């Protein structure tokens, strides 16, 4: 028997497998430094590209030509050449620090996510709960920046952002916990995990909140038909949480240009506004990457059974990952913001606390029910089994 721990299969020796195993500390620190800089570049470049694609697509959906895909890059350059005005009423150090903290916190999340088919750079140093908390920081930074602006519009926007955060956190937490519960449940037989992960021996899962574990064991293969419905419902809930997390229409009341003149960003200009602009772009990549890691973790090279040459494996996996992220952004951001008008803040709270929470709970109950039926081998035709069993996989 072996243990699947944070994405690496190692011999089970009864010791503490969760301890950080570092053989070469200096190499580890170097890896962190290079990895952080590389992922910052990746997040900014692809965040802006996806932002350009989103704007172009939404324009076409509305019968407009729209700006070129490279427009967000031009916007950033333009913002960085503009005056960085600090209002008289503002608390300058908080006002200037808030955009920085927001972007930095968003960047750090990238190191805990499986990007381009690779294991997370810090797969042993943080789990999904940490990501859930880190996701709060950019929104809180915007709230603090809004309050520090000393503008009534920004204050109203900051208050709305807080209400929206309280609204969407509950269904988001349900989705995350469901995943960890489903994978950590005892009903998942070691042989089932062995079959899905391709391990040589039966596997016992540990640290099911680890994204490396979750993306290593695609949840679709562990459930029956009812669980499949549950996963689709959870995916739907997370797709609806995403635009609120990113303050996109219809959940963009904190900014609401036509009502409160940009809300918490009203007073921001120049490089500070540019940093918030980058935060939005990178956070879009982060949210889409989380959805990909949870729901669509497959790699193209593995699907096509390509193992050599190694550069081809990397290229295929990275391109496939970028396409998956793009598709998620189109469905969770572009389509929704084009199709639906802005909701009022009470409608947002009502939507999340009632309908989306109920939706997430239905998904949770379906998966719990499904696992129970697999355990009891409920008699339905030839027995209730994971879908992979029906497909002969």
């Amino acid at each position, binding site marked *: 028997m072996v243990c699947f721990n944070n994405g690496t299969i190692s011999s089970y020796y009864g010791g503490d497998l969760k301890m950080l195993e570092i053989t070469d500390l200096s190499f580890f620190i170097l890896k962190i430094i290079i990895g952080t800089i590389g992922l910052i570049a990746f997040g900014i470049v692809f965040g802006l590209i996806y932002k350009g694609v989103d704007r172009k697509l939404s324009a076409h959906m509305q019968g407009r030509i729209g700006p070129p895909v490279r427009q967000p890059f031009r916007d950033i350059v333009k913002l960085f050449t503009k005056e960085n005005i600090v209002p008289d009423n503002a608390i300058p150090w908080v006002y200037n620090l808030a955009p920085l903290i927001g972007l930095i916190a968003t960047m750090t999340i990238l190191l805990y996510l499986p990007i381009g088919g690779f294991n997370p750079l810090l797969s042993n140093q943080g789990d999904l709960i940490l990501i859930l908390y880190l996701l709060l920081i950019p929104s809180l930074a915007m709230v603090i920046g809004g309050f520090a602006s000393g503008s009534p519009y920004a204050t109203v926007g900051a208050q709305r952002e807080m209400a929206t955060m309280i609204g969407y956190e509950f269904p988001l937490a349900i989705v995350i916990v469901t995943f960890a519960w489903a994978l950590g449940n005892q009903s998942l037989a070691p042989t089932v995990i062995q079959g899905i992960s391709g391990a040589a021996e039966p596997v016992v899962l540990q640290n*099911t909140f680890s994204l490396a574990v979750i993306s290593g064991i695609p949840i679709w293969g562990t459930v029956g038909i009812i669980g499949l419905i549950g996963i689709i419902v959870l995916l739907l809930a997370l797709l609806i949480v995403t635009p609120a997390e990113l303050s996109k229409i219809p959940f963009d009341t904190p900014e609401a240009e036509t009502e409160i003149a940009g809300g918490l960003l009203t007073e921001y200009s120049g490089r500070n506004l540019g940093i918030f602009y980058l935060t939005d772009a990178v956070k879009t990549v982060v949210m889409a990457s989380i959805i990909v890691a949870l729901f669509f973790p497959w790699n193209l090279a593995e699907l096509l059974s390509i193992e050599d040459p190694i550069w081809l494996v990397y290229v295929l996996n990275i391109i496939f990952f970028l396409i998956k992220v793009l598709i998620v952004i189109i469905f969770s951001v572009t389509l929704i913001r084009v199709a639906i008008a802005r909701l009022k803040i009470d409608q947002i709270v009502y939507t999340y606390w009632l309908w989306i929470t109920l939706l997430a709970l239905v998904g949770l109950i379906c998966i719990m029910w499904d696992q129970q039926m697999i355990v009891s081998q409920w008699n339905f035709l030839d027995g209730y089994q994971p879908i992979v069993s029906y497909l002969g996989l």
Partner: protein
Amino acid sequence: MLEWIEPLIKTLTTDSGFWNPLVWGIVFIISYLVIYIVRGMGKKEYKKDTGQTQVFLSGNPEYDKEKMHVPGANVYWGFTEALKWLYNKFDKMHTGNVSDYILWFVLIMGLFLVIMVVI
């Protein structure tokens, strides 16, 4: 040479989760330095003590701070408005009469006892 650091960067674990604050701190500092350099490329000047440093109020004059203040209680407006059907019912229950509160307490206790006995 760097062995003394190793105990400091052990990952904190519970039965279900784990994270390493020190590694996150290192990543945070590296990111801060990079983003700070990027931010430094932007223009930092602006015209102090001019009209551009006044808050934007759609052309309206700025009144005293006390008159412009947005109360913190407004945060909850979205919730009270969205769930007013529920809050209105709760409002009616708050009669201020202790006898009513004790009656509620006894009723809920009775309900729980019934549930516990049945289950």
